[in-house]
């Protein structure tokens, strides 16, 4: 497949030869946590969080572009760059941050699997152990590349949100206006939903993922512009779909004052299209996205951490050749799953709060990315431009200010 792309289409349309990293990374962003967060955002606050989505589209495009550009210029992953520039202590700090964020994301993926299967009356004590085993064997025995392609085909599921949104006849004028009309509220729920929307769109692991992907594909400086097009397109598509999820939920749930408490509620957003089959359709889409995320994120976690500390890493190695790699993979997979099995945590809360945690943990990652992306010695002509720096700073400020506001709101009378 790869050869065919490279030789035949690659020469006619260079973008086809490297199609992938940005679009894959973007699609994965709409995982279990993404669907849940956007659904809650639309159901609880209607269209009033769309402006955050609008800003994060630029944030996502810019941070992904930085990752792709740094990978392309240096041929090294983000973990390697942090290690080489900041030394072992900061590397360890950022790896701990990443591990926590990723275990949260993995928990969200398993919560997505459990929620999807609850629609079919399979409870989580059955579905989660089964899913863990499935993921474990798919990744360690099967080919990971195959999974990627299956997922990409199945992620066409998101198109149903676009159709459903149209069939529910929203006021498009109001929706578009909401995109560019900032709306700020000090309500605790509004703030945490806002943080979760940012956190599910731009993630620590996505930042490491895009750079490793570009490094793996050995893209050269000549691929920079096609690769930029790829990440911009990927970011746009991701949030284009998110927009319709929020709109569909605003019209079907918010307008009728239906709060979301589980997957069955969230599926109501698909009723204009699928009617009584909405629940099944929603469960299928959620299951697909969650399973892929549950396989991809533990592997990505393991890749990055072993890269940072110089252990053997990769699925080509056996358990005995790369014990750290498989150890980290299993550890993050199992801890993520155990958090979901724990009886005291409702699935929706896991799906939702892990996204907010991701946003806060993104802050230190952004600092390192910012410093590295402006390093003249390292990147020379491939450093950040001014506009890119401003967008990174705005993203940082948006997360930081809303997190602080959330903290303050805890002490205010509601």
């Amino acid at each position, binding site marked *: *497949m*790869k*050869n065919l792309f*490279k*030789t035949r289409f690659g020469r006619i349309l260079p973008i086809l030869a490297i199609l992938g990293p940005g679009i894959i990374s973007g699609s994965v962003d709409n995982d279990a946590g993404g669907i849940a967060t956007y659904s809650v955002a639309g159901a609880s606050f209607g269209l009033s969080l769309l402006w955050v989505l609008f800003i994060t589209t630029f944030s996502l495009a810019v941070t992904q572009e930085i990752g792709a550009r740094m990978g*392309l*210029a*240096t*041929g*090294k992953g983000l973990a*390697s760059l942090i*290690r*080489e520039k900041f*030394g*072992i*202590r900061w*590397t*360890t700090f950022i790896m701990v941050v990443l591990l926590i964020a990723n275990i949260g994301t993995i928990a969200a993926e398993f919560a997505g699997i459990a929620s999807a299967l609850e629609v079919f009356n399979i409870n989580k004590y059955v579905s989660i152990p089964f899913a863990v085993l499935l993921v474990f064997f798919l990744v360690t025995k099967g*080919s990971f*590349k*195959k999974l990627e*392609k*299956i997922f990409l085909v199945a992620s066409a599921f998101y198109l149903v949100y676009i159709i459903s949104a149209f069939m529910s006849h929203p006021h498009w004028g109001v929706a578009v206006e909401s995109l560019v009309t900032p709306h700020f509220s000090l309500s605790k729920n509004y703030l945490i939903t806002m943080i979760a929307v940012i956190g599910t769109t731009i993630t620590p692991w996505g930042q490491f993922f895009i750079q490793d992907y570009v490094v793996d*594909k*050995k*893209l*050269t*400086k*000549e691929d920079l512009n096609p690769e930029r097009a790829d990440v911009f397109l990927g970011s746009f598509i991701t949030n284009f779909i998110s927009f319709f999820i929020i709109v569909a939920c605003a019209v079907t749930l918010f307008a009728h004052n239906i709060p979301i408490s589980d997957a069955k509620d969230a599926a109501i957003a698909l009723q204009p299209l699928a009617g009584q089959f909405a629940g099944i359709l929603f469960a299928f889409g959620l299951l697909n996205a969650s399973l892929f995320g549950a396989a991809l994120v533990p592997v990505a976690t393991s890749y990055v951490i072993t890269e940072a*500390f*110089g252990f053997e890493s990769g699925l080509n190695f056996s358990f005995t050749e790369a014990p750290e790699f498989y150890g980290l993979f299993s550890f993050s997979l199992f801890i993520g799953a155990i958090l979901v099995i724990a009886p005291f945590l409702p699935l929706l809360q896991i799906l939702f709060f892990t996204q907010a945690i991701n946003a806060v943990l993104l802050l230190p990652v952004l600092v390192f990315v910012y410093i590295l992306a402006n390093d003249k*010695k390292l990147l020379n002509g491939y450093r950040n431009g001014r506009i890119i720096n401003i967008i990174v700073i705005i993203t940082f400020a948006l997360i930081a200010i809303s997190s602080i506001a959330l903290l303050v709101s805890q002490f205010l009378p509601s």
Partner: protein
Amino acid sequence: MHILALVRKEGDMVYLSQLLNKPVYVGQREYAKVIDFGVVQDLSTANVSTILIRKEGKKFTLPTDQVKFTEKRFFIETEDITLSPYNDKDFYLAEDLLDKQVIDVTGRRLVRVNDVILKKNGVYKIVGIDIGFSGILRRLGLGVVFNLRTISIPWTLIEAFDYQMGQVRLKLSQNSLNAFHPAEIADILEDAGTKERLGVVELLDPRMAAAALGEADPETQQSILESLPKDSLKKIVQKMSVADIVDILKELNPFTSKEIFQNLEQDKIQNVRRLSVYPDNVAGGLMDVNFYREKEDTTVAETIEFLRLMRRRPEVVVVVDNEDTLKGIIAVRNLFNLEPDSSLKDVAISAQSVTSDAPFKEILRTFSEYNLRLLPVVDENDKVIGAISVDTVLEHVQRGEEYEEPI
């Protein structure tokens, strides 16, 4: 490992991480902070010659003999301190070595430096690097908690890069990398960063670089060839086999391809053009046009004499007549058991052959059925136009497994 045992016995072993960011005193007054150690002269001596300090936010270097290190403190005893400006072209241990990847010459792979082991014997001398997890724990202050075995590599057995430029900082006048197998170099090229990759290639003998590139994956080949300076590209391409060039041209952008064509000899260009028309998976795309052929009237003794003169001795002689028609093949190792005066047509065994459009499946079957090392490729008049070696077949099988996964 053995070097640690060696330095422990002599005492005075110290890790770089234990010296960095320590204050340096003049009398009782804190004068500056030690931030790095430089090796300005020849890297092979491994003597630390300057100490880099940060004083009031600026970087300066000091000769090592002005600074004393006792009881975990640095002292300057001399009255007139000779500060020199910091020159980032010099080799510094924290800047260029610590936390970076280096080439492990014995293990023939890239390893990451977790710490640098120094020995004090009048001057500081680099003894080796620590690549074990224990080095990481020590630097995190957890060395006491988990007492793991140190895994180290002697300084003489690594090659380091310049962090900024990516060039390999060779310690020895003799280039250790040329002793690697091309496939080992290819593995290193696939794992190294963009600058380091080019640094390695530029250091290699062009013949070695060409062979290593031939072994590397297509993405790495493309990435290197498109970034090499023109003169290095020229030297390397001239040493590449026609078959490798044909493969690589499919990956490259038009500018680099043109550059490569301009640097090839005329007959090679013709061969490349001829081979380029075949797809990868038929005999024409797999064959090499440089193979050893000999006229049928040549004697065994003459052939052995020719073979002696060759740098890379083939395994098989393809025997042809004056029109290049295939007459048979003979394994080189069998030549020595034959009557020296007999001519090749009398000793050659009849050869299997395929036409240039034969599919890979047929080639693979012929190889395994007849236990071949080399399979001649002929045109419609039975004239030999190329030959496929067993190595090419194995490589194709392997690549097929990597790429042709079902969706």
